[in-house]
C-alpha cells in the first residue's frame, strides 16, 4: 500500500494504520462504536496476508489475541468499554507474560451496558488495569485521524520494545468522526524487533519455553513482580508524551486528552486573542502519565483546569503530578445528547477561574 489521503471515519483510520504498519491478525467482537475497525480489518487484512477473526465474545477475543501474541507476530483487537471490561483478564495476563499487542478502545458511556455515544470513562481501567494484580499497559490517546496514523508506528514499537500491551483510547465521538487523513505506506514496524529469543514457536531452535503466570513458586511470583516494577519504572522515565502550548507564561493551564485536548488548541488561540494568559497540556500517553509536563509548570500558573468526558479520572493523575503545588479544578460529565463540553463551555469555565 502506498501513502494516500483518504476521508475516513477514525475507526477506519485505526484499521488502515494498523494494517499498513504490520498488524497481521486482528481479533474482535462487534460493539458500537468500535465495530468499524473490525469491519475494515476483515476486508483489508487478507491483502496483507493476514486475517480478521471474529470471535464469539470479548473474552474469547482477548484470549485468542494472547494465544496469537505468543507466536511473536503483531496482533491487535478493537472494542469499546463493555467489551474492554471482559478483556482485562487477558490483558493482565499478557502483561505478566510479556506479550506485545495492540488494543483499540473506543470509549462509550457507562456503567452497565451504557450509551453508545462517546465518553472518556475508561481512563481508570486502562491506566490502573481492570484486572487483579499490579500491572500497567502503555496507553496512547490520539485526538484526530492524523494523530492515529502518526502514533500507530510508535505504539507498535513500544509494544515490542517493552513486550507489553499498548492500548489506544479514543472517545466514541472522535471514533465516529470522519476526516481526511494521510495514511502511511506499508511498513511492518514489528519486523524491527527480533522475537526469536522469546516467542513460543516450538523447540526446533530453542530449549523448551513455558509461559507461566501462575503455578510458579512463591519466590518466582515475587521476582516476576519485581521485574515488572523495574520495567514500568523505565517506561515511566522514558516514554511520557504530551502536547502543550502557551504554558510558559500561563495563569491558567487547561489539561485534557482526546477530543477535549484537541479543542484546547482553539481554546488557547481564542483566549490568547483576547489577551488572556491561558495554556494547555494535552497528555498523549495516559500511562505513563506525563508528570513532567506538570512538574515543569512555572509559578505563574495559578490554576489548572482538567476537562474530561467522565466524572473525574485523569484529574487524579494531574493532582498527583502537581502534588498540591497548584490548585486543580475539574469540569466533567458523561452521557447526554452531546456527551462532552463545547468550546464555549470550556472557555466559560476558564474565564471563571481566571476571574477568581
Amino acid at each position, binding site marked *: 500500500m502506498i501513502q494516500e489521503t483518504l*476521508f475516513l471515519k477514525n475507526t477506519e483510520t485505526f484499521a488502515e494504520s494498523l494494517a499498513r504498519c504490520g498488524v497481521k491478525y486482528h481479533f474482535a467482537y462487534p460493539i*458500537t462504536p468500535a465495530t468499524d475497525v473490525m469491519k475494515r480489518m476483515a476486508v483489508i487484512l487478507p491483502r496483507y496476508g493476514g486475517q480478521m477473526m471474529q470471535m464469539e465474545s470479548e473474552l474469547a477475543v482477548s484470549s485468542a489475541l494472547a494465544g496469537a501474541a505468543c507466536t511473536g507476530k503483531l496482533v491487535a483487537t478493537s472494542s469499546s468499554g463493555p467489551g474492554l471490561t471482559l478483556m482485562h483478564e487477558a490483558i493482565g495476563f499478557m502483561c505478566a507474560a510479556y506479550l506485545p499487542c495492540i488494543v483499540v478502545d473506543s470509549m462509550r458511556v457507562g456503567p452497565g451496558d451504557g*450509551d*453508545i*455515544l462517546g465518553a472518556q470513562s475508561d481512563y481508570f481501567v486502562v491506566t490502573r488495569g481492570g484486572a487483579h494484580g499490579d500491572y500497567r499497559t502503555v496507553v496512547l490517546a490520539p485526538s484526530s485521524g492524523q494523530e492515529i496514523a502518526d502514533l500507530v508506528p510508535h505504539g507498535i514499537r513500544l509494544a515490542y520494545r517493552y513486550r507489553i500491551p499498548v492500548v489506544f483510547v479514543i472517545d466514541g*465521538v*472522535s471514533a*465516529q*468522526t*470522519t*476526516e*481526511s487523513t494521510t495514511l502511511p505506506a506499508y511498513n511492518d514496524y514489528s519486523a524491527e524487533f527480533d522475537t526469536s529469543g522469546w516467542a513460543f514457536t516450538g523447540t526446533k531452535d530453542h530449549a523448551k519455553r513455558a509461559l507461566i503466570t501462575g503455578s510458579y513458586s512463591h519466590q518466582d511470583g515475587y521476582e516476576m513482580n519485581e521485574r515488572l516494577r523495574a520495567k514500568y519504572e523505565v517506561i515511566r522515565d522514558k516514554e511520557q508524551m504530551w502536547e502543550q502550548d502557551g504554558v510558559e507564561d500561563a495563569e491558567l493551564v487547561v489539561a485534557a486528552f482526546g*477530543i477535549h485536548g*484537541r*479543542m484546547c*488548541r*482553539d481554546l488557547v*488561540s481564542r483566549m490568547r486573542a483576547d489577551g488572556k494568559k491561558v495554556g494547555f497540556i494535552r497528555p498523549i500517553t495516559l500511562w505513563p502519565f506525563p508528570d513532567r509536563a506538570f512538574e515543569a509548570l512555572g509559578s505563574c500558573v495559578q490554576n489548572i483546569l482538567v476537562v474530561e468526558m467522565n466524572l473525574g479520572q485523569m484529574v487524579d493523575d494531574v493532582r498527583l503530578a502537581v502534588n498540591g503545588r497548584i490548585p486543580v479544578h475539574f469540569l466533567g460529565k458523561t452521557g447526554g*445528547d*452531546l456527551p*462532552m463540553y*463545547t*468550546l*464555549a463551555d470550556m472557555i466559560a469555565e476558564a474565564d471563571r477561574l481566571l476571574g477568581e
Partner: protein
Amino acid sequence: MLHKCTISGSGGQGSALMAKMICLGAIKEGLKVVMTQTYGIEQRGGDSTAYVIVSDQPIGSPIVENDADIAVALSSSTYANCFEGVVPGGSLFTNSSMVEAPRDARGFRQVLLPVSDMAVELGTVRCANMVMLGAVLAGTGLLRLEVAEEVVRESLGAKKPQLVELNVNALRAGFAAMEKEGN
C-alpha cells in the same frame, strides 16, 4: 469560507448519508471537512444527527456547538433540538411532511418543504434526504448541484446503479423546489 451544518432525522431517513454527500462534494471542491455524528442505539427508528464543518481553513474543534448556519430537520423528533441550534442569520430546512407544527423562526430563515411527500411521489419515501440535499444546495450555495450529482454517481454507481437515477432526480427535484420557493 466556513459552514457548520447540523443534519438530523430519525434512523432510516439517511441524515448521515446526506451529510457524507456534502463532505465528499466539499472535498471535491478542495475544501476541508470534518464530520461527527450522534445516533440512537436502534438500527431504525432512533434519532441520528450528523454535524459537518466545511471550511477553506484547517479545522480545529470538530464540534458544531449549537452554532450551525445550515440546519436540517428531517423528522419531528429531531426538530426541536435542531431549531435551538441555528445561529442568527442561518437557515433551517424543515421537512414539513413530518413536522406538523413548525415553530416561528426568529433571527434566522426557516424553509418548510414536504420532502417526504415529494419523495413518495418520486417513487420512495427513502429518497427524502436527497430531495432535502437538493434544497439545501439551492438555498445556501454550499455546493454546486453538479458536484453533488457527481458524488451520488460515484458513491452509488458502483454498488447500486439502479438507485443513481432515483437519487439524482430527487436531488434535482429538491433543488428545483427550493429555487421556486424563492431562494
